[in-house]
């Protein structure tokens, strides 16, 4: 673990970031050798103040400060529909700023030092180099609860075919998406630069066999509904300060954001007393479902659903059913139930 805090000496003369000395960013006392005294007033994460990097990287900082990785607004937007006006104010003060927003990414979290998640501290990404990307030491820490481990196959089942082909997060999630474009988006789904399957897999490039299936399901199914390989992590029963439990699952249903399309759904762990410790009851809990459209990062070309129409159209195997809905869940959940058309 100590190696994560070793700075490569050769960088000190070559890299212009070190020109002003360590204390110019980290504060502390460079003139003493005692660890406690040297670390007095230490700023461990200087790029948390965007003005530090903004001295030179003005354009990136100007857009990044409005991006979802920095503001974490997506976390707030996703849940605020369950609150009354008063409850939202309480949520902002007691929960969002203290808990959700603490997860925001500084420049250094992606470019210098791995973020600390659940006590796991890998230290510097590469000897205090300022790296463009290293997904295994950055994205994987914050997004390792779900998508990263699904992507690599560590969660179980098959790895995503894109990972097997040597692609990593930044192969699809480009700098423009991460740094933002200066717009304030409510959700990652609204971001203009977000990746889409059709960006690379152009219409008309599919085989004759799949053309028929693609044609029949156009605008009715997401790509994930057929090409997600299988179970992904679903989290249940989250309570403030206690976390949630998780189980693998694969759920198909109507997309709550586009009710004409069926897609993979992921359970959202918000329950009626999630924020009870903060005195928030969620007066509008039933306004939003407990399942959101998911983009499981475990894609395969061939799955049981692409091999046989029967899996959906006869067996109705994965579609959400009333008896399987979360107990005491939102009344909005039933609207997501859909049954594929029976075929002979």
């Amino acid at each position, binding site marked *: 673990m*100590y190696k994560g805090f070793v700075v490569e000496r050769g960088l*000190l003369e070559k890299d212009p970031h070190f020109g002003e000395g360590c204390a110019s960013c980290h504060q502390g*006392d460079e003139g003493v050798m005692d660890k406690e005294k040297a670390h007095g007033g230490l700023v461990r994460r200087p790029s948390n103040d965007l003005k530090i990097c903004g001295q030179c990287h003005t354009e990136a900082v100007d857009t990044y400060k409005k991006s979802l990785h920095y503001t974490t607004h997506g976390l707030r937007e996703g849940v605020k529909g369950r609150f009354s006006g008063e409850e939202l104010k309480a949520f902002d003060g007691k929960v969002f700023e203290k808990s959700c927003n603490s997860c925001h990414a500084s420049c250094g979290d992606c470019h210098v030092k791995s973020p600390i998640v*659940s*006590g796991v501290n890998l230290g510097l990404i590469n000897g205090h180099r300022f790296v463009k990307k290293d997904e295994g030491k950055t994205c994987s820490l914050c997004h390792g609860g*779900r998508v990263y481990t699904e992507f690599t196959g560590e969660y179980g089942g098959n790895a995503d075919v894109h990972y097997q082909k040597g692609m990593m997060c930044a192969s699809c999630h480009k700098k423009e998406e991460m740094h933002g474009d200066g717009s304030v988006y409510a959700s990652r789904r609204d971001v203009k630069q977000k990746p889409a399957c059709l960006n690379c897999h152009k219409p008309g490039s599919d085989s004759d066999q799949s053309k028929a299936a693609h044609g029949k399901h156009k605008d009715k199914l997401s790509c994930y509904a057929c090409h997600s390989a299988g179970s992904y992590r679903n*989290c249940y029963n989250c309570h403030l300060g206690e*976390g*949630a439990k998780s189980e693998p699952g694969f759920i198909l249903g109507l997309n709550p954001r586009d009710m004409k399309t069926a897609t993979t759904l992921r359970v959202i762990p918000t329950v009626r007393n999630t924020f009870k410790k903060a005195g928030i009851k969620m007066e509008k809990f039933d306004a939003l479902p407990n399942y959101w459209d998911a983009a499981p990062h475990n894609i395969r070309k061939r799955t049981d659903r692409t091999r046989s129409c029967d899996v959906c159209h006869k067996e109705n195997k994965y579609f959400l059913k009333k008896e399987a809905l979360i107990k005491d869940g939102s009344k909005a959940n039933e609207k997501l139930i859909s049954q594929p058309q029976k075929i002979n």
Partner: protein
Amino acid sequence: MKIGIKLVVVLLFLFTAGFLWAASKDSGCVTCHTNETIMKSLVKPPLDAGGGEGEG
């Protein structure tokens, strides 16, 4: 007189050498953080914080 000049030269040499030595001396940060042996002795792994499933 000659002894005086010699003394001045010696003092000047000592002052310059001392100044150059001080200028090249690494800061406390650099001395520790570029030395694996020192870092190994100073960094203490945290206790297992446990925690939830993580985000993402």
